[in-house]
């Protein structure tokens, strides 16, 4: 079943077009990987899904992106509600310079999800457990989140993202700043999370895409060149460019 259906999405930064007629169906409770060389538009597309492009003044998005029949690319859309449902994890871990507890509790607080202190404690604990961080931090929840290691910080960001129980989580190269061990932990985590949420991940590592995703889309120069099951893309792509990219001949 499709969670997100994008049709003919064009994105412009000022007069420069960054995405050309991208159409893609993102399936529910699966991991969709977007790969492609730097500057190919995969992050731009990802940021359309939670309207983070709004932050950039000169950015203009055309086309239709529907999530469960809700048009995301509409002026009338309440982006605050959208972002409650679509969480995001960034390339560089960016916990708030607050305590671990406050980091996770921030989303539930502003969205009024927890009614009581006990409920909030529960949410923080569950989120940290789901992010496989609970055992490492349960005794120091009131320490500053920035004191954690890079991998722990990124898992804290994931815990923060899942604290409001989103339906979709967007990940923008979440492991590019992490070492292989931390990367493996995050990948394991993604595997667990997909039972409950739809995940879209942008990655530079093709092996990562192959490991974690069920569907893969290959972007090049702002166009979606090929989209299909990960197995097919990596073993038997239809397109010559895709073939060249995954075999490392360019990019």
């Amino acid at each position, binding site marked *: 079943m499709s969670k997100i259906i994008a049709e003919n999405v064009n994105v412009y930064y000022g007069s420069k077009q960054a995405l050309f007629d991208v159409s893609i169906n993102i399936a529910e409770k699966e991991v969709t990987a977007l790969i492609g060389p730097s500057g190919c538009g995969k992050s731009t597309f990802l940021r359309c899904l*939670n309207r*983070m492009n709004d*932050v950039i*003044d000169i950015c203009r998005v055309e086309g239709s992106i529907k999530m469960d029949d809700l048009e995301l690319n509409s002026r009338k859309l309440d*982006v*605050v*509600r*959208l*972002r*409650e449902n679509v*969480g*995001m994890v*960034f390339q*560089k*871990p*960016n*916990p*708030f*310079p607050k305590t671990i507890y406050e980091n996770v509790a*921030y*989303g539930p607080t*502003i*969205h009024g999800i927890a009614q009581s202190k006990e409920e909030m404690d529960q949410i923080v604990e569950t989120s940290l457990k789901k992010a496989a961080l609970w055992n490492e931090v349960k005794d120091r929840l009131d320490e500053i989140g*920035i004191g954690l290691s890079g991998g722990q*910080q990124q898992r804290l*960001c994931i815990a*923060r*993202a899942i604290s*409001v129980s989103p339906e979709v989580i967007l990940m923008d190269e979440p492991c590019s700043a992490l070492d292989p061990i931390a990367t493996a932990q995050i990948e394991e985590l993604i595997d667990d999370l997909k039972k409950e949420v739809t995940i879209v991940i942008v990655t530079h590592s093709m092996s990562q895409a192959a490991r974690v995703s069920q569907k893969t889309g290959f972007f090049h120069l702002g166009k979606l060149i090929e989209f299909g099951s990960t197995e097919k893309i990596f073993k038997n792509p239809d397109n010559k460019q895709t073939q060249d990219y995954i075999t490392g001949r360019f990019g």
Partner: protein
Amino acid sequence: MNNFKKNLLKKRYNAERRFQWYGKIAIGLALTFLAVFMFQIFSKGYSAFQKTWIVTEVHYDKELLLIDAESPSKDDLENADYYDVAYKAMTSLDPGLPEEEDRQLIQMVSYKYETEVKDLLLKNPDFLGKIVPIKLTASDDVDQVHKGNYPRDIPEENRRVNDYQLQIYDMLNERGDILSEFNISFFTNPDSREAELAGIASSFMGTVFSILVCLAFSFPIAVLAAIYLEEFAPKNKFTDFIEVNINNLAAVPSIVFGLLGLGVLLAVFNLPRSTPLVGGIALSLMTLPTIIIAARASLKAVPPSIREAALAMGASNMQTTMHHTVPLSMPGTLSGTIIGLAQALGETAPLILIGMVAFVNTIPGTPVDPAASLPVQIYIWSESAERGFVEKVSACIMVLLAFLILMNLAAQIVRHKFEKKWS
């Protein structure tokens, strides 16, 4: 390596060495100027922190005080006549002096000596009828003689202290009846025409009130303006224009703000003249751009990743700003504010224009009482030729510098202690 290369290398090293020397010389010169400046101020000013007293004996004679009651009440003591008692306390220093020459002795103490005689009795009512020793504030001239600032070997007609007074001074000094103590009254007295009584209490309080008013006006306005411009306003020609003008405002000579205060605050709004309220508002026009610029710079310094994190969590623009960006920018904003206030602290020109240059011999209790300020006090005293005021100018500069150093220190502490580190 051939010779050409060797020479080139040598030249490069020499150039670097020369450059380092230029830098060292520049720093040396700067430090020398500072040292000369400091030495000048301290050598002239340190003596202002010493006060000279003349000790004599006073006889609280009930008859001379014109007190009739057997056991006089506080009111009786308050209303008694101290003129004769005080006069006698001074003339008793030299009983042989003919009456018409008495003024020479009276001139050796401050004109407030009668009040000092009165205050001692009011504090110790049981002195009534007794002969007790009393400390009287020495006159400015005796004070300067005691501090060695007046040469004694010039002809009498060119001296402010005549031979007879010097003789009395020497006699008292030998007896140990000239005391030199820490000058508390410099800090507790308001301004006075008499150097020995003049203090910085009124200008100090004026400065404190001005700075508080300045803070109260400029900080909220500047911070709100900075937050709006940095976080909410669209980036277009109009906001660019505003930014340029804020920067221009920071470069406007302070006297212009004084004229503005005079023309608008005093003439149009009829606010009370010579008060820290008006002075503070005029100064806040000056600090406003400084704080806006500092606040915007520290808002800009908050990493965009923090904003993105908050926005991606579904925080509104307002929540992102208030929960994350503003708290993180506060240390920078506050230290910018303190530096802006420190500039305002040393400002004289606008205050002169709005009338804070008036001679104020009361200590202001509120921002709407007339007051001077420390830099204006320096200006006022520097116009007096008396040696007593010369040392007071330097002492006042020292107090102002201490105040400034404390504020800059506070800015440093705020910046280092409360600045959050991210990743």
